[in-house]
């Protein structure tokens, strides 16, 4: 977090009211992303990772907090101002089947954003679409075809190409490889990394798969029930996880290595409901090292070693 951050999120919160019950989906989310950096958001269902990704682009409106992108506060922009900012910030969706219209040609899908932004002539837009397809290793002629003619991996490439046509500087990639088969996943991961490096993209990468995140991200934010548990560089997080939740999460991942030590630490119980989150530390009800004090105060996210932050009062572990 040295140079001026490209994206700054401060105290982001999102609450919903559902049948009279208040749901705390996000609470006190603060982080920075530097230009050209890839930051991972990891967590299980209900951790709020997708809500953060969408709030940053204002695809959902945050309840409070600020999101500053390249010096501009986004949360107070008018719809028209936001629309002018949108080309710089794009979203890649998880499901390559649901996110591409079956009635539009690939060319129409890829040029829609440009058209809305009033960029270029029809021909220029199509050229950009063809160019974007080539960047994701698909034939330029694909502009004349329909989504159903492509496999899952190819569709995800089209989703990536759609994000690229507007030449964005910042991309939120929401579980971009989760719906893909293992043999295809690696192709798309390699492609995303290539593009990120070649185009100098800044990226917020959302995933439940910690191994994929380790491979693609410079830094990682670990979420649980709408709050940040730990932030660290990938190198530190995987070698020296500090938060008990991060440790449990890493140990829960089944390893295909038959010689890997099987000393899994199994968390008991379920993820609590956001309608009724535990007092104090939200993780304490499943935490193997929780103390009485954990129920009384919300632990602050603090720097425990250079660049590594955790929200846990236990410093006596290790």
């Amino acid at each position, binding site marked *: 977090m040295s140079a001026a951050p490209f994206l700054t999120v401060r105290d982001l919160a999102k609450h919903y009211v559902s049948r009279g019950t208040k749901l705390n989906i996000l609470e006190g989310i603060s982080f920075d992303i530097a230009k050209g950096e890839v930051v991972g958001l990891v967590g*299980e*269902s209900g951790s709020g990772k997708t809500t953060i990704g969408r709030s940053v682009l204002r695809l959902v409106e945050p309840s409070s907090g600020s999101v500053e992108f390249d010096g501009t506060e986004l949360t107070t922009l008018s719809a028209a101002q936001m629309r002018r900012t949108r080309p710089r910030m794009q979203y890649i969706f998880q499901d390559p089947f649901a996110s591409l219209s079956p009635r539009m040609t690939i060319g129409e899908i890829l040029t829609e954003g440009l058209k809305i932004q009033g960029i270029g002539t029809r021909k220029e837009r199509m050229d950009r679409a063809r160019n974007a397809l080539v960047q994701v290793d698909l034939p330029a002629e694909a502009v004349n075809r329909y989504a159903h003619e492509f*496999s*899952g*991996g*190819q569709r995800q490439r089209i989703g990536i190409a759609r994000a690229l046509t507007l030449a964005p500087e910042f991309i939120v990639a929401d579980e971009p490889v989760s719906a893909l*088969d*293992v*043999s*295809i*996943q*690696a*192709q798309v*991961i*390699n492609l995303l*990394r290539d593009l990120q490096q070649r185009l100098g993209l800044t990226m917020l990468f959302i995933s*439940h798969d*910690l*191994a*994929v995140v*380790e*491979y693609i991200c410079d830094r990682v934010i670990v979420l649980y029930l709408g709050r940040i548990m730990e932030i660290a560089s*990938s*190198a530190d997080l*995987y*070698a020296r996880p500090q938060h008990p939740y991060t440790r*449990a*999460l*890493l140990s*829960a*991942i*089944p*390893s*295909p*290595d*038959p*010689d*890997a030590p*099987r000393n*899994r630490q*199994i*968390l*008991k119980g*379920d*993820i609590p409901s956001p309608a009724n989150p535990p007092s104090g530390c939200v993780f304490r009800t*499943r935490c193997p090292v929780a103390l009485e004090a954990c129920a009384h105060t919300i632990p602050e996210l603090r720097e425990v070693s250079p660049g590594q932050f955790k929200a846990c009062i236990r410093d006596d572990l290790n």
Partner: protein
Amino acid sequence: MDERVDPILDIRGLRTIFRTRGGEITAVDGIDLSVAAGETVALVGESGSGKSVTSLSVMGLLTRNVGAIAAGSIHFKSKDGAIRDLVTLDEKQMRRIRGDDIGMVFQEPMSSLNPVFTVGDQIAEPIRIHRDADRKSAMNSAVGLLDQVGIPDAKRRAGQYPHELSGGMRQRATIAMALACDPTLLIADEPTTALDVTIQAQILDLLIKLQRERGMGMLFVTHNLGVVAEIAHRVAVMYAGRIVEEGPVGEVFRNPRHPYTLGLLASMPRLGEATRMKQAGQKLAAIPGIVPSLADMPDGCAFSPRCSYAIDACRAAVPALAAVNAMHRSRCIRWQEVGR
């Protein structure tokens, strides 16, 4: 083919077809697979590999008039010791076996649970049907089962409806239902795929424990190689409707002898290794190309269009399963050259 004694499930030459508007397609093409008592065998593969169709064929749950077993036998040893070929049984006879001798757990617990009955009623149902138990003793057994699968406060939970339980609890409830009649074989089809990783760890742990305690055979269908290493004794890797490699999990994962298995293992980013790979500028070893369509299969070895080892002979004929050793087989004519 398998010399191990006493398989409870013995599939030979299974061929399952689907009738589509475009004609007949072969989803499973000549599978041999056996499961012994006390053994967990994982069927692993990607979408369209035929792993789920294989398990549905065993359970007799292929969609009628669409899917059908075209060839082969599925010998199954039930609790009374009788060995029968499930392919020859009618629906009524199959119904007697399913839920009694064979328990089933699926990916989506809500697809096996009825939203309008309590969890306890649903677990008690197979006990009443197959065991002829009265309502009260069946319900007592149901509560006992909920307790065994690690649901706290089992008595109260038995009176609740599925929507009142979390995803992990629902999957525990369907496991309780599957075990209600002490099956000799449990078929688990992607039972942890819809669950979060910390809940997946709980369910895998539970299945391993129950399988050991009960000495059941387990056929575990999954796409996740990590889960296979965690739970199974033996693994059969499927690709495009055929088993391409088979053997003890440790042996196959340490010493894969089929290029597809090798490719799958190499394409997974591994925890703790990815940072080093990234720093060294290494890419993930992706398998090029896409999984072939069952309606348009390549000649010879179905993996040959994506395989870096492929030669003309691979496209000439479907390779036979070659014995790497007594327990380990690979459907590759160049298996001796394949390896890390």
